């Protein structure tokens, strides 16, 4: 899961784009969004807060997770299809995204407009989106409208027809958005950073692809991508909310019984180049701030060091105002509104990155401070207090990671995707609590790389006068 959006979550009711951003100002919005991203991979319930989950595997291979909860008349559905960026060839980058985008643009039974009209009319939402490792279809619907919701859900999943005029329209829109994002410095920094860190690997490309690669995608590519991967034996269905097992069974029988098992093609991905030298990329733009990213290749989700890395990252820059980077770069030096670090642990190695924005003139000082903090956590053990604070946050905050039906549905699906197991819930606190200061030092040394980091600076380069 990559973060490419600008760090400004809408807060107000009915938040729309640029306008709402201006209505309210969080003190540190990014902290929340970074933790949310983290949450998907790491906060799990303990026995104190066990979810009642029913897991079944259907004859067609579909894994179904169900958490029944009748406190509100709503139903949240998350379907993960194990196909994303990682399954697309480089010359057709953007294929997974375009496939997902077109699911709601025409089926055997409905035109684009009919789909949005029926969904909007019942005040529900039905979205399909691709990611690095998988594609997600989510439905949020009132209980009273569950039949209509399930019908539409199954229609876009099973019967999309990828009409040529809709493909052309969507391609133009994506190309337009790609162009518009050229004015967003954080996007430019992110794109350059990923490209350098991952090289030819699919993780190194942005989800939408490029204007050129989108042009290479034909209708038959979309049809084939859908036919190859959108299979029950390649998917996880997670349902949370006001629905009994019997009701769920009936819905599945009615709307998903035609979904047939088939063989899943093996995927092709570029090789990761692990032996990269240190590199600095400077992008010149007429800005008041330097947008800075520093980092390197990180870890995969199944790396046993995942928990030690979680603790280390919390102390370094993942823990909001409790983190060292926030304390030094923001609190003490007043250099940035936002400074953070995070690991994106995917199916394969993801990234580790530190990000901040500071006025052009302070870029050198800020980078020096970041490098100093990286050096410190690699050379000296963290204190016992820091360790215990990180552990109490990581273990103590998970009930809040599962406090809505939407969060539960998404969480169960990703736990299944990353093979964490149903008992993982009870094991998680032990994994975290067993991390020592020695482990933190070891993983900092191993995964933070002062010799091989990639540094990207998008700034008014004349004013920034970078020494790096």
């Amino acid at each position, binding site marked *: 899961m990559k973060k490419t959006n600008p760090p400004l979550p809408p807060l107000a009711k009915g938040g729309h784009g640029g306008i709402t951003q201006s209505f309210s100002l969080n003190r*540190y919005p990014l902290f*929340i969004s970074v933790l949310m991203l983290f949450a998907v991979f790491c906060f799990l319930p303990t026995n104190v807060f066990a979810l009642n989950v029913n897991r079944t595997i259907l004859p067609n291979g579909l894994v179904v997770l169900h958490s029944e909860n009748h406190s509100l008349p709503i139903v949240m559905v998350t379907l993960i299809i194990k196909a994303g960026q990682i399954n697309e060839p480089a010359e057709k980058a953007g294929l997974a995204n375009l496939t997902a985008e077109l699911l709601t643009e025409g089926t055997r039974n409905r035109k684009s407009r009919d789909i949005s009209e029926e969904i909007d009319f019942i005040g529900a939402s039905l979205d399909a989106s691709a990611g690095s490792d998988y594609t997600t279809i989510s439905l949020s619907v009132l209980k009273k409208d569950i039949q209509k919701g399930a019908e539409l859900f199954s229609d876009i999943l099973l019967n999309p027809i990828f009409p040529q005029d809709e493909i052309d329209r969507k391609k133009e829109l994506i190309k*337009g958005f790609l162009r518009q994002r050229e004015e967003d410095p954080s996007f430019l920094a992110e794109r350059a950073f990923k490209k350098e860190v991952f090289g030819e690997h699919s993780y190194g490309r942005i989800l939408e692809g490029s204007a050129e690669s989108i042009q290479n995608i034909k209708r038959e590519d979309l049809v084939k991508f859908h036919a190859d991967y959108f299979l029950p034996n390649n998917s996880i269905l997670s349902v949370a909310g006001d629905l009994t097992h019997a009701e769920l069974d009936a819905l599945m029988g009615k709307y998903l019984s035609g979904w047939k098992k088939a063989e899943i093609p093996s995927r092709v991905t570029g090789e990761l180049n692990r032996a990269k030298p240190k590199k600095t990329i400077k992008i010149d733009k007429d800005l008041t701030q330097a947008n800075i990213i520093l980092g390197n290749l990180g870890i995969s989700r199944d790396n046993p060091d995942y928990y030690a890395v979680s603790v280390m990252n919390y102390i370094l820059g993942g823990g909001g105002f409790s983190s060292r980077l926030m304390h030094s770069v923001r609190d003490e030096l007043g250099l940035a509104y936002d400074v953070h670090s995070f690991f994106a642990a995917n199916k394969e190695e993801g990234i580790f990155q530190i990000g901040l924005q500071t006025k052009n003139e302070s870029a050198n000082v800020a980078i020096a401070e970041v490098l100093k903090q990286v050096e410190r956590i690699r050379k000296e053990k963290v204190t016992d207090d820091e360790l215990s604070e990180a552990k109490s946050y990581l273990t103590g905050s998970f009930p809040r990671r599962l406090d809505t039906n939407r969060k539960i549905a998404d969480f169960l699906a990703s736990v299944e995707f990353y093979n964490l197991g149903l008992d993982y819930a009870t094991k998680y606190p032990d994994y975290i609590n067993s991390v020592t200061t020695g482990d933190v030092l070891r993983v900092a040394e191993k995964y933070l790389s002062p010799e091989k980091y990639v540094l990207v600076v998008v700034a008014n380069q004349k004013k920034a006068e970078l020494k790096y």
Partner: protein
Amino acid sequence: MKYIKFFSFFLFLFLPNIVCSSEVKEYKLNNGLKVIAVEEHKSPVATFQIWYRVGSRDEPAGKSGLSHLLEHMMFKGTSKYGTSALSRIVQKNGGTDNAYTTKDYTVYFELFSSDRIILSVDLEADRMQNLIMDPKEVLSERSVVMEERRLRYEDDPQNSLFEEVTAAAFKVHPYQRLVIGWMSDLKSIERDDLYDYYKTYYSPNNAVIVVAGDVNGDELIKNIGTLFGDLPCGPPIKKMSSAEPEQKGERRVILKREAELPYILIAYHVPSFPHEDSYALDVLNLILAGGKSTRLYQSLVYEKKVALGASADYSGFSRDPYLFFFYATAAPGRDIEDVEASLYAEIKNLQNEPPSEREIQKAKNQIESSFIMGQDSIYVQAMKYGMFEMLGDWRLIDTYIEGIRKVTREDVVEIAKKYFKEENGTVGILIPTKKVDSNQ
């Protein structure tokens, strides 16, 4: 007894086919502090929020950004807990804290497992009165806020246009200035400005506490009474009152700067909730921009392909009349004049012919559904109570739902005619100046 409990009942939102209930209790301390407890036991979590009735509207001339900078300073430590200790204490207990400032109010909140919520009472009571506000910290935090301004506005072309349009739409009312404040004003804010502002507005009689989640209001109020009950009332607060004179002609703002695509933002003066027109404005907003099936997307993006995105935005939840926005980004190769003409064409349609019954029903369904879905999150739920309380009384939630339900097709035509008039609008256009070169 430091407090009296004067209200407790089940709130029922009567929606078609669905009844949702939460138990709401209301208390008031002798020093004027009001407490609203929303008991909701579906998950072992709780949120504590303290709402101060102060926002950018209350700032003196030349000191825009004061409320928001003060919000930042509220995290910098008290005599009891020392510098920057607050968030650390919260996180150590598995919690998260944050705050935000709006035109009308400022909110601080924590989210905890419900067994830790009592910590909030201590932390918030302490910082209502005992901020240190070290001058060195003020200087440092001021530069942090300037970085925030650079991040959100200076380097973001569309947000810059938003600031320009707002400033042009209001000549008199303080809504003219954004919450972030102008850079030159920020530079002039000193420690004493902040401290006086803090001592004026941060008092029990100018605040409301909203607690929601797995809590027992009658238990919690005892702690709140103990820790907040002895805090003295603040000075009497002179409420800022200002009215924007009627606009007599279109205003146009042009912003030329480095950007990729032209962008248009149009703002019309409109009333706020609970004005009788506010309900129809809400419904109208959704008829125009409540999803991909609605008018602006269908016309500008899907059919005509003149825009990459087109939307509208109205929130009636402000203390004084604010703005109804239309905005759109031109598709590559398309003129912003075409985009503007297409927006006016949609407005004309609404003025000439009533929307269909189905469109009205769709908008109402969306509002009701978002109310119910919002209850899934105790945070969202608490925000809703707090926001209505800031507008007068949380019971206005019922008034709002009722008002929405009564909106007719004719109401929508009428308000479209009444407010979307050329002389009532401010039009802002972003014109990209030079091509961005992002090659490495």
